[in-house]
């Protein structure tokens, strides 16, 4: 354990976050993910939809023989859906979970840049209470005059898939449909 980590453990809630970040654009805002988690970036193509899954799961794709689920980050963040153009890309990330590592793709509007970010450049996200969920925001940083939101990707998928798993017992959903 290095000094930085120790320091961060004592000065919660800021987790270790220094390093290089790959950033991408979602609805005009720039978001960053730890570059070491990025497996590859590929153009957006269609995905095979999976029945009865949350709306933000776009489906699964064939990534050189591996089945990889695609998360639509716009939908995940409850933004307006858009028809993805030819700049839309899938950022394939390695996500750590309790059961091991998973590979998942995230559709974003466009890929932007790679930045070096040091710990002191990262500011904690302001607390919005329950009106804005910030549980998967690692922190905010400034590059030039732009704000970049650094995402805690494990958290994002954990809550995402956890809710997906919760949503899976379809009975509730079906009951709703049956009632109408």
């Amino acid at each position: 354990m290095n000094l930085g980590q120790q320091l961060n453990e004592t000065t919660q809630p800021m987790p270790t976050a220094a390093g290089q970040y790959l950033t991408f654009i979602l609805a005009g805002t720039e978001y960053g993910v730890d570059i070491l988690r990025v497996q590859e970036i590929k153009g957006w193509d269609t995905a095979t939809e999976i029945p009865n899954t949350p709306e933000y799961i776009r489906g699964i794709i064939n990534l050189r023989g591996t089945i990889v689920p695609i998360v639509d980050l716009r939908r995940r963040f409850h933004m307006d859906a858009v028809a993805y153009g030819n700049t839309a890309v899938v950022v394939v990330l390695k996500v750590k979970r309790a059961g091991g590592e998973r590979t998942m793709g995230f559709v974003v509007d466009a890929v932007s840049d790679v930045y070096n970010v040091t710990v002191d450049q990262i500011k904690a996200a302001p607390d919005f209470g329950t009106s804005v969920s910030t549980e998967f925001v690692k922190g905010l940083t400034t590059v030039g005059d732009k704000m970049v939101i650094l995402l805690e990707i494990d958290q994002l998928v954990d809550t995402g898939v956890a809710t997906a798993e919760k949503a899976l017992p379809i009975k509730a959903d079906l009951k709703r449909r049956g009632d109408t």
Partner: protein
Amino acid sequence: MLEKLSDPLVHLVRNSLDHGIELPEVRKACGKDETGRVHLHAYHQGGTIVIEVADDGAGLNKAKILQAAREQGVIGEHEALAEDRIHELIFQPGFSTADTITDISGRGVGMDVVRRNIKDLGGSIEIESEEGLGSTFTIRLPLTLAILDGQLVRIGRHIYSIPLVSIVESLQVAPKCVSRITGKGEIYKLRADYLPIIRLYEVFNVVSDSERIESGILVVVEDDGQRAGIYIDELLAQQQVVIKSLETNYTRVPGISGATILGDGTVALILDVPGVVELSRNFVPVGFRPDTHEAVVRAA
């Protein structure tokens, strides 16, 4: 995969023959046929492959296992165990109850290796045993590297693969054979049989070409002796597919046992027929349950 599986299988069959099946005189005395039987049975179930090795022999002798376990110090002198825990004991390394060592078994090397090999493959093994009636060893393996004969079907723009083993026949729907039970569950009269109709587009919440039943195809599937008709838009090719797990990178999806990659590189989902039937039962509570099904048949 086969290499890892053949040793455990051979071992289980040997065990059944040596430990399970009794000598002809003993069998006769118990009122059984002199000839013992060992049944091997393999099939798909849900997202797994199931292999059963069943014999009609003596079954696991619990008293003997307990005694041997105590002697070998695996459990304490006065420890009491539940039945399945006793059965578990035979998976202990070095454990044997055979009185004599024969060519076939009794060296105490075996069940632990069997279990380890199966665990390495990501599977599990269970024992069901009734003293005097026989034992069944059930191996469950994940459907990962397996190849499956599938019938590709289309609903709207979605393509699914239905395992061919589950399909009995496919037919064009004659509207006069369709009736409804209490206005909900749809029933199809196929010759002398009544099948519940599962409209897959409803269960999966996708858009199909048409909701008029006569414009599609009914794929008759069978699961556990229970038949159902799955309504789809079109039959496509029959194709062997390699099963890829959805769980590696995502999670289990009800009604889907895995995915596969088609010739053009796109992904198709493989239907888990029992899962789909289960889903549709929740979807259409009336008209699908066996009791209502029977009631209708009787009424007819």
